[in-house]
């Protein structure tokens, strides 16, 4: 008789491989990109700063973090892409509005020419409701920031620079493509199909639902990890990540997990290095997270040896995140 543990592993793997989200788990390890097209610096800097609560002043911390990360902001047209995917009054699904507002103000103080907040929610098509219920609408009014719904924005074709999904050119929103600096502003969360959702997975939200369906269904059929790689590889503008880890989400993320207070914000211009650092904060092993392992071979640095850690030391801030059974192997 099939040993129970072995069966469960296989059965769950198969289910995740072809779920109703159409998630196909990639098994490919071969490189499907031209390494010469992705030059990497010798090392990448990641800043981890303490931020204890959403009702404390955050703008100065975020300004410090951006400066420590070494991002060039002055004179740029900046698009801030938070994670706004769903709303649950009892949950912690989205990037907190206070972090979004503080980031907008910080970017302006650092000399940004324009700051736009833009997202293409992956679940809800009712953007008016989502903005209102999440509290983001009120915050955007306070800081007088324009919001763009990326699900229905004008699009332009963007050629892929890696070929993990098998998709042709991606139709991406003009608002994102016209950015001089793209800021990924995700929540620190586990994800029941990808293991974690951080600054790179957050880019699913720039893929327009009107063209690719909800919940960005084409990407799920092509494999979530493959899609993370191809979308991120296709982006050529300067980038910055600001990860909302003040309160993260553990367990059955990205929607139905539990709140996990962490009291940190994480900054960096190399999203692979940022996500790897976040995984370590969650006590998950980056090399066992499929997309991070592969991204670390060409899109940035996942190896701690190539990451220059500034700000707070990680060790005292690490708190183990609960993961669903199928991701138990991610534990460091």
């Amino acid at each position: 008789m099939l040993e129970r543990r072995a069966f469960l592993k296989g059965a769950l793997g198969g289910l995740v491989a072809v779920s109703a989200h159409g998630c196909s788990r990639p098994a490919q390890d071969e490189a499907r990109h031209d390494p010469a097209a992705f030059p990497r610096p010798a090392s990448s800097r990641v800043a981890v700063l303490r931020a204890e609560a959403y009702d404390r002043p955050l703008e100065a911390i975020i300004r410090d973090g951006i400066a420590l990360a070494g991002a060039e902001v002055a004179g740029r047209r900046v698009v801030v892409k938070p994670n706004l995917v769903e709303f649950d009054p009892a949950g912690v699904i989205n990037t907190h509005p206070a972090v979004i507002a503080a980031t907008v103000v910080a970017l302006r103080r650092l000399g940004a020419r324009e700051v736009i907040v833009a997202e293409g929610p992956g679940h809800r098509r009712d953007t008016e409701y989502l903005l209102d219920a999440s509290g983001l609408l009120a915050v955007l009014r306070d800081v007088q920031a324009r919001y763009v719904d990326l699900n229905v924005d004008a699009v332009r074709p963007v050629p892929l620079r890696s070929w993990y999904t098998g998709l042709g050119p991606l139709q991406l929103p003009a608002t994102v493509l016209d950015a001089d600096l793209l800021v990924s502003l995700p929540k620190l969360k586990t994800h029941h199909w990808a293991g974690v959702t951080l600054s790179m997975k957050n880019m699913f939200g720039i893929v327009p639902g009107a063209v690719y369906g909800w919940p960005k269904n084409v990407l799920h059929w092509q494999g979530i990890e493959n899609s993370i790689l191809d979308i991120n590889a296709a982006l050529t503008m300067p980038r910055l990540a600001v990860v909302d880890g003040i309160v993260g989400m553990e367990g059955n993320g990205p929607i139905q997990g539990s709140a996990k207070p962490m009291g940190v914000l994480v900054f960096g211009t190399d999203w692979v290095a940022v996500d790897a650092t976040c995984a370590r904060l969650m006590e998950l092993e980056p090399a066992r997270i499929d997309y991070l392992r592969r991204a670390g071979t060409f899109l940035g640095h996942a190896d701690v040896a190539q990451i220059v850690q500034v700000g707070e030391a990680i060790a005292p801030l690490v708190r183990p995140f609960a993961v669903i059974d199928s991701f138990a192997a991610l534990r460091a």
Partner: protein
Amino acid sequence: MMRAALLARQNPDGGLGARPGLPSATEPTALAVLALSFEPDQPDTLPLRAWLRARQTPEHAWPVMAGLQEPSWTTALAVLALARYPEDAPLAERGAAWLTSSRGKTIDTRGGLLGRLFGATPTNELDGTLVGWPWVDGTFSWVEPTAYALLALRAVSPPPAGATARIAEGERLLLDRVCRDGGWNYGNRRVLGEDLWSYPDTTALAVLALGRRADRGITDRALACLESMLTRNHSGLATALGVLALAAHGRDVHALRERLQARFEATGFAGDSRALAWAVLASNAAAKPFGEPGRA
């Protein structure tokens, strides 16, 4: 006021963008045609319809927006709109034929049943073999595009070959996807052992698409779920679709219609042209856009 705002959003090319200032797109343009077609004084929809006519693809489908060529889920909405006008009926009929050939992919959920024998938490609890309509060809069937397709195929007379069977299976799919609370999420009802919650917009669309073909108990639960959600969600889209679904089943929607108008004055529905078009339709008490719910 809402109708004037809708007409004022027309781009120079005749179509409507999803938001003011955006390129014309099939969904808001088709919904505007649908809404205006029920107005008693018959406003001029010709520029809007001309935009739609010019965008029908060689496959007789419609793309998502100007500049794109691929057939898309918005075909159902274009069919629904153009079927209202006899001179456009041939385009609608050809679009309906394409729609009949568009199929969502199926998934094998048998692994889930075996997994349950071993105590594993199933990934999804739905019948993945049922075929409805996807957002994008080659992907899974979801509630919203399936609801649009059902409404569109019923709007075309006579229905294209094969439509009757597709409609019946689409209805079964919607009934398979009912959430525990009685409404509809975007496509699943339960994932990894957790119930998903319903949305008012998808619930209203599913109710409209099923009409009275669902058991009375299912419809009553869905309407109760919808009414409950509308106490918390006041958006233009949710309220407009809620009004249409509730009114189709004889519920008193007078207060909701007033709320819809007040909401538009307060928020402009965050610029959402789709919500505005649905709101124009929902505000028209004389309109029965999807026929009598009991009529198959």
